[in-house]
């Protein structure tokens, strides 16, 4: 497109090569960035995932090779974590969507007549980003710890049985995931609902659709771009998250996800090929799922 636009404004061959050079110069920083920080690490990751243990037998030493066995090793060893990662990601994305949609609808549609309120609510949605998410997750760990006021209360009213603790449970991890990633759902939904033309809704009710039907037939399809980008922006990072599920934060050894295992293999076991193979597997599954999802929702042109 850019080339065509430049070409049409400069009809001579000389002009074309000149503007071609301008385009290249403008693209160069981006291209260099992509090659340095995406292509090279990706290739290196794939190569590492195929390395074999060094002949010396020392822990953490590997030589270049073509050891496909790394993949079967991680998939057989870590399949529960793989399944848990995508289960958690699926659950947390759905919960985020269910919480975010009414919130985004209120901010984007109902609060339109009050711009001050609208701006304030958007700021509140973004506000958590002003504090590091590690700090916030640590804070939740304190709040949800066994003898915290919240937990004392939960025990008192019988939400938890006397010997049960919330922290370290799967529910705690999903809670943390939802908490940390919900703005990525709310913001795209808000952007899409904020542009929703009320007149379509009026036309719907004028054409005999009840409020519930108007929502299902008009509001929902028209906000689909926001739903798609919101679910992708939450699902993908959640599937790879290694903070919330970690023992140091809200999880326990029973809640580890793919990210936790990559972390452990890289930093503790120094099994670099296994960690790399795990990352490639994670990437591959996400790529397949996203492609299927986008095809299915018929919104390829959005990406």
């Amino acid at each position: 497109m850019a080339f065509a636009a430049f070409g049409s404004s400069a009809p001579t061959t000389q002009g074309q090569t000149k503007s071609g050079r301008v385009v290249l110069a403008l693209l160069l920083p981006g291209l260099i960035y992509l090659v340095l920080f995406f292509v090279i690490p990706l290739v290196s990751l794939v190569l590492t995932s195929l390395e074999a243990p060094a002949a010396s037998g020392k822990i953490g030493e590997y030589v270049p090779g073509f050891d496909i066995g790394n993949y079967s090793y991680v998939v057989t060893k870590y399949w529960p974590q793989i399944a848990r990662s995508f289960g958690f990601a699926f659950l947390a994305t759905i919960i985020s969507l269910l919480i975010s949609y009414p919130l985004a609808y209120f901010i984007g549609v109902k609060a339109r007549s009050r711009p001050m309120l609208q701006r304030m609510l958007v700021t509140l949605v973004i506000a958590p980003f002003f504090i590091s998410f590690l700090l916030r997750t640590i804070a939740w760990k304190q709040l949800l710890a066994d003898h915290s006021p919240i937990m004392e209360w939960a025990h008192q009213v019988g939400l938890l049985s006397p010997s049960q603790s919330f922290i370290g449970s799967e529910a705690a991890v999903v809670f943390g995931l939802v908490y940390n990633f919900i703005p990525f759902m709310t913001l795209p939904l808000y952007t899409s609902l904020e542009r929703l033309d009320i007149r379509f809704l009026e036309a719907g009710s004028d054409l005999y659709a009840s409020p519930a039907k108007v929502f299902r037939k008009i509001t929902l399809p028209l906000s689909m771009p926001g739903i798609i980008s919101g679910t992708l922006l939450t699902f993908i990072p959640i599937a790879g998250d290694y903070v919330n599920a970690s023992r140091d934060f809200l999880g326990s050894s029973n809640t580890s996800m793919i990210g936790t295992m990559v972390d452990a293999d890289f930093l503790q076991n120094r099994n670099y090929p296994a960690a790399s193979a795990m990352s490639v597997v994670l990437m591959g599954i996400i790529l397949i799922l996203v492609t299927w999802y986008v095809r299915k929702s018929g919104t390829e042109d959005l990406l």
Partner: protein
Amino acid sequence: MAGELSVAGADLELIDVRKDFPGFTALDDMDLHIPAGQFFALLGPSGCGKTTTLRIVAGLETPTQGRVLIGGKDITDTKPHERPVNTVFQSYALFPHMTILDNVAFGLRQRKVEDPVAKAQAALDLVELGHVGERRPQQLSGGQQQRVALARALVNRPSLLLLDEPLGALDLKLRRQMQIELKAIQMEVGLTFLHVTHDQEEAMDMADTVAVMNKGRIEQMGAPEALYDRPKTAFVSKFLGQSNLFVGKVVDSNANSVSIEVGGSKITVDKKRAEKHEGTIAIGVRPEKATFHESKPTLGADHVLIGPGEIIDIRFTGVSNQYLIEVPNVGEITVFAQNVGKSPVVELGAKVWISWKVEHSFGLRDLPDGTEDQG
């Protein structure tokens, strides 16, 4: 096919309807009755309350007080989707995520009418767009979208069709063409049409009855010809066409006529064409009813004669010339003269007398803004 779409329209009644918005009153105790099968136009400048009226009838606004009846049934508290009313919106509001055919079939599907696709196709055929059913709204031109919006409303056979400035976004030529088509469709299907517009030519051209609205009230209502021939308020006389208005104290009144004196000239109106007969009143005449003379003519009592004045502006508009004449102590008078001979008839600065037949004068109920009661 038109027979399949046609139903008997229902009459619409607004009783004492009032709508207050924070800070202003959009509608002030409005009473309105539109007989079934009529093409009724609400005409007025923006902000006069005409769109609010339409939205109240559609159920998209709730009146502060008053009742709305369709076919004798009170629907004031009925939800919009339960009213036998359909609207052609100013913006068309065609659903962008549906095909044209799905748009037109939407209302039928909501009411679970049998065979929605065939009926939607028939409605599209009626507006001569049967071939675009599979396209999306954004692939159509403005005029085509307008016709789809019309088909989407008509296909439901509403008792009452509301049109909210549906031709506003079209260019002049297309607008005139759509006016003719819309009128033809209304006659064909026999529905009650309530048309809201600020275009006085459009209202006069299409409607059986026109109600001129101003500041949340109906100023005057009637057949287009009657409204034009005998406006009763200063607002109507200026909004519907152009008028020359003269304000003065009544100096002469007999069984048949009333006269005022303005700057030494006597301006007379037939008593039956005047709303007020004493005190300070305003008398008007349409610019095309007046003529001018280069020398003072001798005219009987059945004519009004003013002058002499000076021609200060001449505008060529094609079929006619508009002359602006400044008469000392009286003011500026506009006269239209057809381009049938020499054009312009007189030169700028010429001294002329203006006359018209008394039977063309009309007397107003109120005085134009900015004039004081001299009584």
